[in-house]
């Protein structure tokens, strides 16, 4: 196992480097630059800015400067869009917000999704099953950019219970709508995967054996069915977790959370190379890390899997 983890890390580093190089080059190939504006800057002004940010050098030199900054000094450079801030500061302002509502959404989605899926499978073809399937299909087809404005309309304007957006670390009322809007569709997917997988497991031989031994139903489900049924869910959860904690531009837009999701999309549109690279590396690293976590969890849940 330890050797496996080491090997995975050894592969992760070149993968990340490749990601950096590829995104860097792609980004520079896109038309326009960070300082392309409606009113073209006079050449002398543009020259000063390019010199300050090192954009006057050949792309490969820029790439090298960037890479060495990241690798040796953990310095992701200054942001072009937010001239008073470094990329590290921009990420430090937005990522904790996204991480918070993302993690809560994840927990909510997993708990509700698994419970719903399991209940539906156990009570297969009853009203409970239909209800659970109905909810999850409904939640799946209702995109969050439709749901977010509806939530604001209902909870802020009509009921007046929750603030319509923004972020506060001291007041969890601000977190509720982003969590609902973000977790719903994930919850729906988790419920559907759990239900399907649970149905399959429940009709398998070892469950029949367990029941034949006369185990109580609760024990059959919790001890013998749940663990194998969760395998496909877990392979879904790895990437889902990363995409939840690195934010959703829709959630950030509609609830103005100041999260990293919007910063990421903005940076691409504004050609803020530095912030865009910083967030890309963050998402890349997290994706690699959590796919490793998923693999380890696999081995833990299914004793047949060995690395």
């Amino acid at each position, binding site marked *: 196992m330890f050797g496996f983890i080491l090997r995975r890390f050894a592969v992760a580093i070149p993968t990340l480097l490749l990601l950096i190089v590829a995104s860097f080059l792609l980004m520079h190939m896109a038309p326009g630059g960070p300082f392309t504006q*409606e009113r073209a800057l006079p050449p002398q002004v543009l020259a000063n800015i390019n010199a300050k940010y090192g954009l006057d050098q050949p792309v490969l030199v820029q790439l090298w400067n960037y890479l060495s900054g990241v690798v040796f000094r953990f310095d992701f450079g200054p942001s072009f869009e937010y001239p008073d801030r470094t990329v590290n500061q921009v990420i430090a302002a937005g990522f904790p917000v996204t991480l918070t509502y993302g993690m809560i959404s994840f927990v909510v989605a997993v708990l509700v999704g698994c419970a719903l899926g399991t209940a539906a499978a156990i009570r297969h073809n009853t009203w409970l099953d239909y209800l659970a399937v109905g909810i999850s299909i409904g939640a799946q087809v209702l995109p969050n950019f439709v749901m977010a404005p509806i939530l*604001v309309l209902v909870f802020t304007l009509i009921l007046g219970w929750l*603030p319509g957006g923004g972020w506060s670390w001291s007041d969890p009322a601000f977190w509720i709508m982003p969590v609902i809007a973000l977790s719903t569709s994930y919850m729906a997917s988790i419920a559907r995967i759990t239900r399907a997988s649970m149905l399959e497991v429940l009709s398998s031989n070892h469950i029949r054996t367990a029941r034949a031994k006369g185990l109580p139903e609760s024990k059959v489900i919790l001890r013998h069915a749940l663990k194998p049924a969760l395998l496909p869910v877990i392979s879904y959860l790895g990437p889902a977790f990363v995409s939840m904690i690195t934010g959703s531009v829709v959630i*950030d837009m509609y609830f103005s959370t100041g999260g990293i999701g919007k910063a990421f999309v903005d940076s691409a549109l504004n050609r803020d190379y530095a912030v865009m690279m910083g967030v890309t590396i963050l998402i890349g690293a997290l994706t690699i890390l959590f796919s490793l976590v998923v693999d380890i969890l696999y081995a833990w849940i299914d004793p047949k899997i060995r690395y």
Partner: protein
Amino acid sequence: MTKFLITTALALSFALPAVAASVPEGTKLADKQEYNFWLLDAIKSTDPAKNTDVEGSDILRQLFEGLYNEDDKGAMVPGVATDYTLSDDKLTYTFKLRPEAKWSNGDPVTANDFVYAWRRVADPATASEYAWFIELMNIENATAVVKGEKKPEELGVKALDDHTLEVKLSTPTPYLIKTLAHASTFPVNQKVVEAEGDAWTQPGKLVGNGAYVLTGHNLGVDITLEKNDNYWDAANTIITKAKGITVNDINIGLTRYQSGELDRVDIPAGQYPRLKESNPEEAITTPLACSYAYIFNVSDKGPEALKDVRVRKALSLAVNRDVIVDKVLQGGQKPAWTWTHWAIEGFEAPENADEAKTQEQRLEEAKALLAEAGYGPDNPLNLTIQYNTSEDHKKLAVAVQQFWKQLGVNVTLNNVEWKVHTDRLQNQDFEVARYAWCGDFNEASTFLDWFRTDGYNSGKWSNAEYDKLMADAKTAEDTKPIYKRAEEILAAEAPAAFVYHYANADMIRKDVKGLPLDNVMNDWYLKDMYRVAE
């Protein structure tokens, strides 16, 4: 013009020693003087030398004060400067500064603070995107300093003593005073900037000379301003606290206005008539100094057809501006027959025969012009309209596609993202492109300079008479006839089809007073605002 300005400045400085919130007598003020306003996006910087956008300027105008401010009509009124004199050659301005002006940390505001700030904007080391603004002001040596050929110390700005600032220009600049309320010209506190580096703009560290101090800033969430007791006119400042709240979606912004979280928001396109009906006292439109146009590429990279003035004229005539304004936008915009916004101070539009015609007549004329140029059913004209991603631009482009179809012109729509659009505009990689220009100050040349041969002029239209007019305007006593003639040339030559002049459609709480609703620049000052008891 200049004389007029001097007299105005002097008159104002005597008539209105304190131009802060002027509350009519008998007004009962509300107990709570707080104001929450809407921001579409994160405030990128609160450094006057680094800010580049309108919302950032709105914040800076509260945190800092320049030599002049704008009143509710857009006229210049004394800020830190109390008055000025201009030399006979119109090249040297000498400003008298208010001795009682203080920084928020209690330091006096001196002429040196302006000298330092303006040098800093021009200094290549600062790499300010708005260094061009110092060039636009025609301050002596500005371009050479920006280019790095001269030292920032050689910029034509000097402190004669603590409260006297001398500004030397390279060429007479009739609009100079109008540039002095721009955020790029605000003073900064040298001591603080040098001590704190890039971090000086953070709440708690930022020292300004405006009526408010920065007490909180959560990037992309909110920004909080509180009354600055060290401001020279603090006694007449009424609003105690203001919060700019970011709502990235304009429709949600409206919902949050309705839920009471915001006191002012923009109205999403097309919703103004409905809101005007349901909330007549709150739904307000005001002119905004921007013009919308379709630019024709007449450069060598553009299509041959557009080099023919008859074709351009025909295309311009066929655009049904009334439909666009009344049916599509519906937010107080006006049909444009000039490039300069109609509400720009002192601008007089020339008579335009096309404007008086009905759309049917225009269409007939357009068809005739196009036929004359050799285009018709057997030789149809094919054009591509490029626009950047936005629902509104798309609606307009589709409408124009239909208008031009009536002429037998086949239009392909090409939607690209903003940066690509801009890049192509600047490299003449387009045929017809959607464009809008917003004035930097309240004077017609901020629009008209765009079409100079060496202006931004993406379509590369060029006209010697026009260039000469715009050059003459810089030293002319009376610029009105010059700008009028320039607009006549634009109308005759149609380097672009002007479509509409912008307006802001806003929801504003009816107890909020002191917003400059007649100022086409829409520059508002919290210090002039107050809330009345309902």
